[in-house]
């Protein structure tokens, strides 16, 4: 079997990664290297002077057409996926999409238009349409929306921290790693099926704003996955162990560090053990939630309800509204959880999938408290939302949560990375935290997640559940799900682990808006204990 160190060496030596993209910039003379081999070209974001001029022309055209503010955003999105099952490759695909979206703000209303035609004529035409749409919307009704101030940052760049650009590693290398791990899983007796894959994204984004910022940024995301299925010999039951590795905003090195033979052996063993596991006894249990599971509970029950547009009814027809409303009634008063519960919003962490240099309207990355000492203190905001709550928060600037999932989508408020901060008093280890539980269930990995449209009633399950007795994990249980009401659940938080248990999970495809847009976001948290949670038995 290939050792990871050898593999890294091999991967680094391969220069044959093939992508479709990069060509527009290369044609314009910006980057060296063949369009088919951009791995040989630049690895950092740079401001392309030709593209900058085109975008500034678009901004200028929107302003001339009557906008009080405008931005133009060019994006080239590359996506590559390699999928395998058992001993063979199921699919290899790569896509590239590029274009420019222009947004105009006229008399309190937004207009947006996008074009794949990246010439000056093409983007200027889009800019004029954006201004016309904004005027038409403003004519219907004055919204009274005001933009919070933002500084001019001039020409700036930001590149996601990474060691290996995922597009510099060949599909052959990726497939071989996956097939190798599949073989490791299949060697475990009882494992019948394995599917695995890795999806890689790279986005080159250049934003020009009428507020005086031109930001060129490069983002990366990797999404490795594996699902292992064990089937009983008489086919009376089957069990799957999936969601084994979190997606990340780091480079391909993250895949190499996490898709290892040692880890795969553990996942395969869990799949087989679950087949023989006893079914859980329904009732009230203490829960010990590993960060690989807890991150999604945070995402669903704290992330979404703190979206300000949602709380004010702007998502009512789709995702719903929020129990954290109206802002005047909950800001600085609503108790989310115990005094040692602190939630931060941030777009600054290395490897965070929502991490940036500047957001999609030129606001710099920052971190800020959202739940402090257990009290809800702030929402997620964009420039046009700050005014709605500044009276209660004292904030006059955006938290930088503007994001569009592509060049043809209008940017709007999306979730930043949101983290539950670890225990600052004691660096409690996993074992220390388990020791605080006499009779409980320990859950690892995200599985089934469902929550109502105001984010009160949720029911979640994990990939693996262990019974905890006398402070120790004892046996694997099956058919475990827990159901709770958000404020009750968070107020039952009893113990949190220290910084050494902190771990970052996340979602590559968080949906919001109509037409739907996808956001990628990370959530870090320590291992945590919740007392007396309602556990169901989902077996039939």
């Amino acid at each position, binding site marked *: 079997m290939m050792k990871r160190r050898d593999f890294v060496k091999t991967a680094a030596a391969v220069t044959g990664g093939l992508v479709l993209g990069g*060509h527009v910039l290369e044609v314009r003379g910006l980057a060296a290297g063949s369009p088919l081999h951009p791995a040989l070209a630049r690895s950092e974001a740079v401001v392309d002077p030709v593209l900058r001029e085109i975008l500034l022309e678009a901004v200028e055209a929107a302003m001339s057409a009557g906008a009080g503010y405008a931005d133009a955003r060019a994006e080239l999105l590359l996506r590559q996926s390699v999928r395998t099952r058992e001993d063979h490759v199921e699919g290899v695909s790569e896509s590239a999409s590029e274009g420019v979206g222009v947004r105009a703000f006229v008399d309190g209303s937004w207009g947006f238009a996008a074009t794949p035609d990246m010439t000056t004529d093409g983007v200027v035409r889009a800019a004029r349409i954006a201004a016309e749409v904004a005027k038409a919307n403003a004519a219907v009704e004055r919204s009274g929306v005001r933009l919070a101030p933002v500084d001019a940052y001039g020409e700036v760049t930001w590149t996601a921290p990474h060691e290996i650009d995922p597009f510099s590693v060949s599909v052959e290398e990726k497939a071989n790693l996956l097939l190798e791990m599949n073989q490791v899983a299949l060697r475990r007796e009882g494992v019948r099926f394995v599917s695995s894959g890795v999806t890689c994204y790279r986005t080159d984004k250049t934003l020009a704003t009428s507020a005086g910022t031109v930001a060129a940024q490069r983002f990366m995301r990797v999404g490795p996955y594996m699902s292992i299925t064990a089937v009983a010999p008489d086919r009376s039951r089957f069990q799957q162990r999936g969601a084994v590795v979190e997606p990340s905003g780091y480079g391909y090195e993250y895949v190499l560090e996490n898709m290892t033979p040692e880890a795969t052996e553990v996942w395969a063993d869990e799949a087989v053990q679950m087949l023989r596991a006893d079914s859980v006894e329904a009732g009230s249990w203490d829960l010990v939630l590993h960060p690989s599971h807890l991150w999604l509970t945070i995402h669903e029950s704290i992330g979404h309800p703190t979206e300000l547009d949602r709380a004010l009814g702007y998502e009512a027809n789709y995702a719903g509204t929020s129990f954290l409303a109206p802002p005047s009634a909950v800001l600085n008063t609503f108790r989310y959880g115990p005094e040692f519960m602190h939630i931060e919003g941030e777009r600054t962490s290395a490897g965070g999938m929502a991490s940036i240099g500047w957001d999609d309207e030129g606001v710099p990355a920052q971190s800020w408290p959202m739940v402090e000492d257990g009290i809800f203190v702030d929402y997620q905001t964009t420039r046009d939302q700050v005014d709605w709550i500044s009276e209660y928060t004292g904030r006059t600037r955006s938290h930088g949560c503007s994001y569009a999932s592509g060049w043809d989508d209008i940017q709007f408020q999306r979730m930043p990375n949101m983290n539950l901060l670890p225990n600052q008093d004691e660096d409690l280890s996993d074992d220390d935290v388990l020791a605080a539980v006499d009779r409980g269930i320990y859950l690892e990995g995200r599985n089934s997640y469902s929550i109502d449209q105001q984010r009160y009633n949720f029911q979640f399950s994990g990939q693996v559940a262990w019974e905890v007795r006398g402070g120790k994990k004892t046996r694997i249980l099956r058919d475990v799900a827990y159901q709770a009401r958000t404020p009750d659940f968070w107020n039952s938080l009893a113990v949190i682990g220290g910084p050494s248990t902190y771990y970052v999970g996340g979602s590559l495809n968080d949906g919001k808006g109509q037409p739907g847009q996808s956001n990628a976001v990370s959530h870090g948290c320590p291992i945590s204990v919740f007392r007396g949670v309602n556990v169901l038995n989902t077996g039939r």
Partner: protein
Amino acid sequence: MARTRRIDDLLSEAEAKELADRVLAMSPADETDVSVGSGWTGNTRSAVNRITTAGEVTNTSVSVTARFGRREASTSTNRLDEEGLRTAAEAAADLARLAPENPELMPLLGTQAYAPSDGFHEATANLGPAERGRIAADAITAAAADGDLTAAGFLTAGASASAIANSAGMFAYHRSTSVDYELTVRTADGTGSGWAGVAHRDRAALDIPSMHARAVRRAIDSRNPTGLEPGDYPVVFTAHAVSDIVGLLAGSLGARSADEGRSAFSAEGEGTKVGQKLLDEKFQLASDPAGLGSSTWQGDGMPLGQEVWFRAGVLEQLSYDRYWADRHGVRPTGGPGSLRMGGGDASLEDLVRGLDRGLFVTRLWYIRSIDPRTILYTGLTRDGVFWVENGEIVRPVNNFRWNDSPLTAFASIEALGRPERVSSSREVPPARLSSFQFSTVSEAV
């Protein structure tokens, strides 16, 4: 501004063929598949009684799949000039050369015969921003008429033309339109919420004023719900709620997972449950792509026809892709898309009149799998749940979380109503079920 005839943005059959042939000629691979998609979508979104966003997007993209023996890879691009297309074709070939072999690849299909399918309607293709804006304004007016209601809606209309071609001579083209409109109306005090939705390929088939009226009525009627304990209740589900449950069943119909012993339709020991009566005899489910204006081919060019999945509650067959069908010596069916569920003549109101004591459910929400072995799912109700007694809606009640499976829900059918379009490519009836399992209360409105 946007053209009024968006049909001009779609590739004609001749244009699509010319584009596909040009890409095929550029491909350095031994064998090549090309797919071309072009289309526009326009949308208008409203919330808090205002139009909040409106957009028009036109895009064309090309995908190329290159093969060398059993090595295969795909690329796609929206850059359609000579260099963009050539880059896509060459990169697909370069990726395919590096891809490990896939022993499950089936040979390319040659020329095929396809059933005609007309899914294109001018009335939808001409549904521009001005008319969409008027419809949104009408909804806001209908809500405002009551004084304390707020409307949030989303109307999207689109037209698309797609084509596939390969180096073995296969070519197929299909053009269709679709329109989908939904409206949520909430009471200002936050205690009531109503929803209604309509969809079709043909905008002329939509009755929008009565859809607005339904959402408004459900909002008003749902105000100040009273508490009801969770439990098993008889229910009347709207067609939209039924459609959600149908989707869960359709997603479990793969023959391969059943043969592999990891499906609700695997028989213990060996074999599958095909031929067994699993659901109520009133349950019928079929795919009907031509009847619903969908394309009558799938991505690899395989023709798609009518396929019956359940007849009189009996599982008639499972779905086979070409590889699995070939291995088992059966006819490939393609996946269970463009679904029609059979029904009767009753209206939704008739179904309520037949309910002694139970719940009327407008809409289901946030449905997630719990156990694929039993097709057990969890989800919630939303935007209007009402207690019914002696055939009359008597009061609004709280929302619920539910835990249930199509295998039990559709085994308990009491009556089915008239099928209606719930999306451009699906038609299902509203239903009265003798039991559905509501597990906990949701205080969300």
